[in-house]
């Protein structure tokens, strides 16, 4: 009886073990496929692919092939995602803190539902909203930007509405539900003893929340990074509002381009072999960057979870809490 039972356990373990291996195999498989399908471009441009400005599928002069460089796309992707995080980070943190610390219990579930609803809206719907509502709005903002501001590189360029600012705002709205719900989970994982300790020392509510936030900071950073990973890969909504112009610029008003957008835009009609390989290499670059960002964020969250087990002992020391509050 006993042996058959443990035998069943063994099979179950093997059976379930297949799934993570499968997932790993898919990730590795995608990497290999991206590499082998972009080999022409990798051989032709080498590492320069990452640092070249020109993206021109048409051969000119004596050249037999087009010129391809990923720099404007890498720039546009990172710039738009970082801007989105600068906007979405504080907002998401505010939402998470309110929902986990201050919100009346009756309101909590409806509010959680509403913020997570934002994540359920398809990307293309955000894009349409962006094109018909956000872009005209941003254009008005740009038209009314005082001339003196326009001297700054950050606000230069014609008032098109389309561009970096619209893309960053759309992205910010799209990643907010992700960051806020992850941050809320992190705050939930902060042991009660932390807050109770703070209150016991006479801390105000604001100070107790600060203790909780500082305790969960690595996890919160991880949540933000996961939002970053998502922003990097966002395609449809961004391509509809960013203006799709592969030029490196600091200007928020300038039309720019992202990696995911150029793949989506040019893949179907890329009849030329090198063009196709260059597009897939863009995919490879995006894959590497996304993998890196996601791994980093997961590491941070893991380290936070380890701390959650290890910390309370040290954290109960009165002196330490006092200094944190």
């Amino acid at each position, binding site marked *: 009886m006993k042996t058959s039972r443990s035998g069943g356990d063994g099979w179950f373990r093997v059976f379930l073990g297949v799934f993570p291996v499968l997932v790993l195999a898919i990730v590795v498989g995608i990497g290999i496929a991206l590499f082998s399908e972009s080999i022409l471009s990798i051989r032709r441009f080498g590492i320069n692919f990452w640092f070249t400005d020109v993206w021109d599928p048409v051969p000119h002069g004596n050249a037999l092939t087009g010129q391809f460089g990923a720099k404007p796309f890498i720039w546009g992707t990172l710039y738009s995602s970082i801007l989105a995080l600068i906007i979405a980070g504080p907002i998401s943190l505010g939402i998470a803190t309110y929902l986990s610390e201050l919100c009346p219990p009756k309101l909590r579930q409806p509010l959680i539902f509403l913020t997570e609803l934002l994540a359920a809206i398809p990307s293309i719907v955000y894009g349409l909203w962006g094109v018909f509502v956000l872009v005209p709005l941003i254009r008005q903002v740009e038209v009314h930007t005082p001339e003196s501001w326009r001297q700054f590189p950050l606000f230069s360029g014609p008032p098109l509405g389309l561009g970096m600012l619209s893309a960053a705002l759309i992205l910010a709205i799209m990643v907010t539900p992700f960051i806020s719900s992850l941050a809320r989970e992190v705050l939930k994982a902060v042991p009660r003893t932390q807050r109770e300790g703070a209150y016991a020392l006479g801390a105000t509510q604001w100070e107790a929340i600060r203790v909780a936030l500082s305790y969960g900071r690595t996890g919160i950073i991880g949540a933000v990074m996961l939002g970053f990973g998502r922003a990097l890969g966002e395609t449809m909504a961004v391509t509809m509002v960013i203006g799709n112009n592969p030029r490196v610029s600091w200007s928020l008003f300038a039309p720019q381009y992202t990696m995911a957008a150029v793949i989506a*835009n*040019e893949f*179907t*009609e*890329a009849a030329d072999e090198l063009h196709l390989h260059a597009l897939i290499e863009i995919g490879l670059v995006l894959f590497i960057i996304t993998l890196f960002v*996601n791994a980093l964020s997961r590491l941070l969250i893991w380290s936070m979870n380890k701390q959650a087990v290890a910390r309370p002992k040290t954290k109960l020391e009165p002196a330490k809490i006092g200094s944190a509050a």
Partner: protein
Amino acid sequence: MKKLFATVALFALCTACGGGSSAPVSTNNATPAASGGKTQVNGAGATFPNPIYSKWFSEYNKLHPDVEVNYQSIGSGGGIRQLAAQTVFFGASDAPMTDEQMKQAPGKILHFPTVLGAVVPVYNIEGASAQVKFTGPVLADIFLGKIKRWNDPAIAKANAGIKLPNSEITVVHRSDGSGTSFIYTDYLSKVSEEWKQKVGANASVNWPIGVGGKGNEGVAGLVKQTPNSLGYVELVYALQNKIPYGAVQNASGEFVTPSTDSVTAAAAGAAANMPKDFRVSITNAPGQGAYPISSFTWILMYEEPKDQTLAKVMVAFMKWALSDGQKIAPEMGYAAVPANVVQTELEQLNQIKVQ
């Protein structure tokens, strides 16, 4: 617990990356099969003629219930690749195949012009009282960024009597690779040496200036929203959505308003110099009333197809499409292929080896 976490993390990684590289991958589901007395023909390619092809296939299916044509509108580039890989029986493209692409294919491929399309300049100009006229060089210079304002003398010259504002022109182009862009840049390359040198003709090019909108609807939407903008869309799209579009000067010096008739006229004008394989660009065609930014769209087939059943069915379909099918074209916004071209096409159809 740890393992569970790892699984979840990996899953998150995968979905994140998957979202990034969500490009369409060519499918292999196009293996021809004759099942239950039904013959299924699979094709793939251009998106531009998709509405009329779908209409044709469904109409033809009503006449011949045993024939079913599946067409995937995955883009011209994809259509050519799948035809070369022989995963589909026929391909479709908005641009003729290049010599290089022909060489890479395992057999000789024939081009059949099916209908014609045109690309029209669409604009949003404050206070423009009548249809704006464009010459080819003016369009090229605007898209090169050399003509910056609507009241430029070069534009005014062709538009006596229309008050054009002293405002900067916002140029809107397609961001996605498309046959529309190919036709437009092909035309600009013919009328402007500088455009040919600096930019060239392709489904996607390195645009000197402007913003990119996705699809006809993207470009049209941006033009509608942005004061003093100029873009280009398919004729069908402009007609259906009633966007103001310009007249363009043709090679004979005449300003022609785009319409299905003026597009057919361009094809008729080009018919005299039509190469035997139909691989021809008819932009900037000469002739009375010929609209210059016009182009054929093609169906591509092997001269010696492997599958005889499918070949027979497809040849019969093509004969129908080139006769009765053409009558549906204008009402759907496509220009019909002129009769003299249809005649030579029917001769080419007979070349297809069917026992």
